């Protein structure tokens, strides 16, 4: 059923430009990227219990990495550049993780990751070649050479469709990792790290691996973001941006794989609905999010499941109860 729903969502996403205006399509593109960003954060949180406050660092590294590579070597195959951006995120996570995940867990890791993302934001703000606070503009949508055909992603809705398919692929990767043998081992580590160690599982290595995968996925999401917005700014690495996947996850429900997607959708709808409330828009969004999370600790999905159970319970009173 999950597969059918996911496939239906994919088809609808691909067909969206046929029925919707450019503004909505643009928003939808952001939503798909946000969902992948959320999935990658929840991969760490749900599977190994890592709480990162700096996940945006990897999104920014992927975004800027893609933009710089594509500008420096315009001849490189674009797909390779996207993969390279992911690899850049993975390598950064490997370096950081080896240090940050040694002993320090919980709040230490959270703070460490936060500091990391602020450093990345500062470096971006400082480097003229990255556009400093003015942003990195003019990121081209590339031309895909698939051998049998060349597709100009700059034309029409081509980049949007490419974005949808890429996000679907990234989602599939995260889903697959989550449900694989390795994912089950991650989950064991999250449930009881000590017990896992006494089964001969190298706990720190599992966390590092999960961190690296999550960073790579976030980096590719960042790489996709650049050509979509055609502008990158240092805010992408900042804590406000790191807060997004956390928000998506808590809003949608951390216990479910699909939680971040539901959360990202809710967030986007809210943001769109309050866009005309200049000044108070953010407060309204923040307030509504807070209320939802307070009322439904399990997020929207948790709330729905609870609601359905409650309704079924009332509809079918148990004899003798």
């Amino acid at each position, binding site marked *: 059923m999950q597969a059918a729903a996911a496939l239906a969502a994919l088809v609808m996403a691909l067909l969206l430009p046929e029925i919707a205006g450019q503004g909505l399509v643009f928003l939808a593109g952001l939503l798909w990227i946000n969902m992948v960003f959320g999935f990658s954060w929840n991969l760490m949180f749900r599977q190994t219990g890592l709480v990162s406050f700096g996940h945006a660092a990897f999104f920014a590294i992927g975004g800027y990495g893609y933009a710089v590579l594509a500008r420096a070597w315009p001849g490189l195959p674009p797909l390779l550049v996207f993969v390279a951006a992911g690899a850049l995120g993975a390598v950064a996570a490997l370096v950081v993780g080896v240090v940050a995940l040694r002993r320090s867990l919980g709040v230490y890791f959270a703070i460490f990751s936060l500091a990391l993302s602020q450093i990345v934001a500062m470096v971006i703000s400082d480097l003229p070649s990255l556009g400093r606070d003015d942003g990195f503009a003019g990121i081209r949508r590339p031309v895909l050479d698939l051998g049998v055909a060349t597709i100009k992603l700059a034309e029409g809705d081509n980049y949007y469709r490419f974005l949808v398919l890429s996000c679907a692929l990234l989602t599939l990767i995260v889903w*697959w*990792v989550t*449900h*694989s*043998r*390795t994912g*089950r*081992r991650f*989950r*064991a580590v999250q*449930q*009881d790290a*000590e*017990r*896992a*160690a*006494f*089964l*001969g*599982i*190298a*706990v720190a290595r599992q966390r590092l*691996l999960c961190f690296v995968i999550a960073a790579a996925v976030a980096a590719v999401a960042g790489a996709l973001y650049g050509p979509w917005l055609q502008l990158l700014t240092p805010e992408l690495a900042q804590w406000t941006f790191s807060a997004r996947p956390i928000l998506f996850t808590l809003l949608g429900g951390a216990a479910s794989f699909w939680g971040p997607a539901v959360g990202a959708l809710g967030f986007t709808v809210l943001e769109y609905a309050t866009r005309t409330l200049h000044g108070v828009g953010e407060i309204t969004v923040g307030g509504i999010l807070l209320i939802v999370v307070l009322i439904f600790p399990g997020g929207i999905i948790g709330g729905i499941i609870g609601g359905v159970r409650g309704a079924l319970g009332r509809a079918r009173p148990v004899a003798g109860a």
Partner: protein
Amino acid sequence: MSRAPFLTAQALRKSYPAVTVLRGVSLSVAEGDSFAVIGPNGAGKTTLFKVLSGELFADAGTVTFEGRDVTAMPAWQRVRLGFGRTFQVARVFPDLTAEDNAIVAAEAARRGGVSLAWWPARSVRAAAHAALNEVALFERRSHIARLLAYGDRKRLELAMSLILRPRLLMLDEPTAGMSPPDRAASVELIAALKQRHGMTLVLTEHDMSVVFGLANRVAVLNHGEVVTVGTPEEVRANPTVREIYLGSGHA
């Protein structure tokens, strides 16, 4: 005894911020032993277990396993040398089913690297099922571990440890929290498993019937020091031991 020391502790010391718990503990366990560490509450038994198994590192002293210095080796590496361990309060992966708990252990036993395969290998599933059978949990394999009865959780933990085919199995209070009939059954089960798998056992236990039912050697720990080591009969006859137990019993 001419057998080489299998597991030794030499002058182990360990302090927590406020208290010194181990004050120079030395022990030698021979291969094939069922070695019990007994002592009153707070004597330092669990701490000794943690240091021997690598959950904690000693402040001073050494731990050797088959002649090899493992003092600085983290737990997961000791497990790969042949250590197995259960906890005083049974620890399993609470949100996984009993079967998945066993499968995680079976996969860890094979030391598979990263695998994106979805289903466990057939041999892994078989090993997991065999282990669940050994502790009579096969029927309940699809239960979520958190919802199992406590005794079942303890046996699940035992099964998970056994899947790794440890040569040294450390049991911290294997029957704590069980009813007397369950305890007797546990003693029988552990003795049978030890026999079948040819393991060396190190255990702590408060219940003397369990200790005397399983152990061939007993060390008595009091205030972080080894008071005496000997056969169960020797220890039972030791006047200092009687004093410690009577003293603490009437305190």
